[in-house]
């Protein structure tokens, strides 16, 4: 019953996702422009900590794909606030499903849409000239899944602290963008001064981006096993956290 409940919630998320075609395209706009214009603009820049044979666009693309997964995942987690605002959450809360099931169902549903968006972005990046190692596509999936679950779960945890949707802009500007900029997605973290660099070590997305980059272009600043373990531990922590916080919310 509970497993089936997770499936039902997942199915709803997916149905809504597929139906909102303009949102699928729209939300890919910004990352595509990031990739295209930064990639072209910096294509001849010399970055000391990058190997000679690695072009900037190859360095950048895994970061941009991670960005898409980060943003989509967090958005769909936080979108529980919409459901609360428009009342639909109540329909779920009075059903026989347990709170844990509800929170897990939303996490898996949101993570799935984030993974689809990330994969779409990966394909789009081929058009801009990104040429990843083909076998790396499989490894990159593991990292995408972990990034997606971590940040969808984190989005749900954040949503339990929000009263209404007005806090959304705050989440984007003061949570998502700093996470993104301090993850090594746009430049190697070894280029950062020591203080900022130590911040990136605390950022779970750093390990996601690094793992993606290792998978796709075989360049990384940490060992991929370190990336994988840190992300795995973090995603388990986030699932426990979001379930715990969701458990305590009253929809009244």
């Amino acid at each position: 019953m509970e497993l089936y409940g997770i499936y039902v919630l997942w199915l709803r998320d997916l149905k809504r996702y597929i139906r909102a075609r303009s949102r699928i395209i729209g939300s890919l706009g910004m990352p595509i422009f990031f990739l295209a214009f930064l990639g072209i603009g910096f294509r001849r820049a010399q970055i000391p900590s990058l190997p000679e044979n690695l072009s900037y666009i190859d360095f950048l693309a895994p970061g941009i794909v991670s960005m898409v997964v980060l943003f989509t995942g967090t958005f769909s987690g936080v979108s529980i606030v919409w459901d609360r605002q428009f009342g639909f959450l109540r329909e779920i809360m009075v059903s026989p499903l347990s709170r844990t099931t509800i929170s897990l169902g939303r996490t898996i549903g949101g993570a799935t849409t984030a993974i689809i968006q990330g994969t779409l972005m990966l394909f789009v990046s081929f058009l801009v000239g990104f040429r990843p190692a083909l076998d790396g596509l499989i490894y990159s999936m593991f990292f995408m899944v972990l990034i997606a679950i971590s940040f969808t779960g984190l989005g749900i945890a954040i949503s339990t602290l929000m009263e209404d949707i007005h806090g959304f802009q705050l989440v984007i500007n003061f949570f998502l963008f700093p996470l993104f900029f301090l993850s090594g997605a746009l430049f190697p973290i070894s280029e950062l001064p020591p203080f900022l660099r130590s911040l990136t070590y605390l950022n779970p997305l750093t390990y996601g981006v690094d793992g993606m980059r290792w998978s796709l272009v075989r360049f990384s600043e940490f060992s991929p096993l370190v990336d994988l373990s840190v992300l795995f531990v973090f995603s388990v922590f986030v699932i426990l956290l979001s379930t715990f916080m969701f458990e305590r919310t009253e929809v009244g």
Partner: protein
Amino acid sequence: MKIVMRGEELQPVAIRVENLSKDFGSLRAVNSVSFEVVSGEVFGLLGPNGAGKTTLIKMLCTLLKPTSGKAEIAGFDIVKNPSEVRKNIGIVFQEPTLDVELTAKENLDFHGRLYGMDGKKRNERIKEVLKLVGLEDRADELVKKFSGGMQRRLEIARGFMHFPKVLFLDEPTLGLDVQTRRKIWEYIDKVRKEEDITIILTTHYIEEAENLCDRVAIIDHGNIIALDTVERLKNRVGEDSIEIVTEGDVSDFIELMKSANLRVVRTEEGLMVSAGEAERLIPQIFSLANKNGIVIKSVSLKKSSLEDVFILLTGRKIREESSSGALHVMRARRMGR
């Protein structure tokens, strides 16, 4: 399931509430309320906005935890066994809770799945409930294209789709125009006739309680101040009532009437006399006023309603006539949170 004597037959109790209370900080929203609802009954909670109706419903639906007291739905305790309670109830909230991005059918399908109905059963039932609320032609339309009345009908259909034993309707016609409201009443009546279900509804519309309910509990400030069949509640104020507004103070007039053995209470505007065939009393009242130099400004005769019962018990009206409908809705919604 426990049974109680009621009339000649034995009927199972669908809802049993014992001394249920809910505090919000220092405010007591529901104060030691007790009642029983028998299977198959339509039970109304009538009272002004903010009387505690919605809070009471939310406790029974396991959305809020009671401060004290207990309640059972279909034999399951709302605190000890919330998931069993949830399986046995359907709810239509004041605020819409549909997914407007999905079609009517998809909303119902999702609901059926949430309650563990299998595919075949679900599809049959979706057709059945859509037909009952007259939406069978709109099954595949997105809910955001529905009018307010249609959305409400869909919510009611969804509420009883999974064969709940008890259906809760919280202000089912709030914010709807009069015509739509009558339409909704027809559908609720149909549900009650065609489904094996107990309905408990809250309302602050007198006509709604009178039209739909077998028994009504009148609630004010978190207390049940009267509970009986609509008929017997009305009998408390007699068949009719006369509202009188006089010039100056009404206290003396009230005393005079009392000494003439009339049942009279003070209201906000003046006074109200309750009696069987009240029109026969009008000449007597006028001569009483003339003899004592009291000037009557206006007289109105009314068929008795539950409104009068409420006035008799509290000295106030359930609805303030002056406030606009829209304001009303807004306030009610806020109270609901």
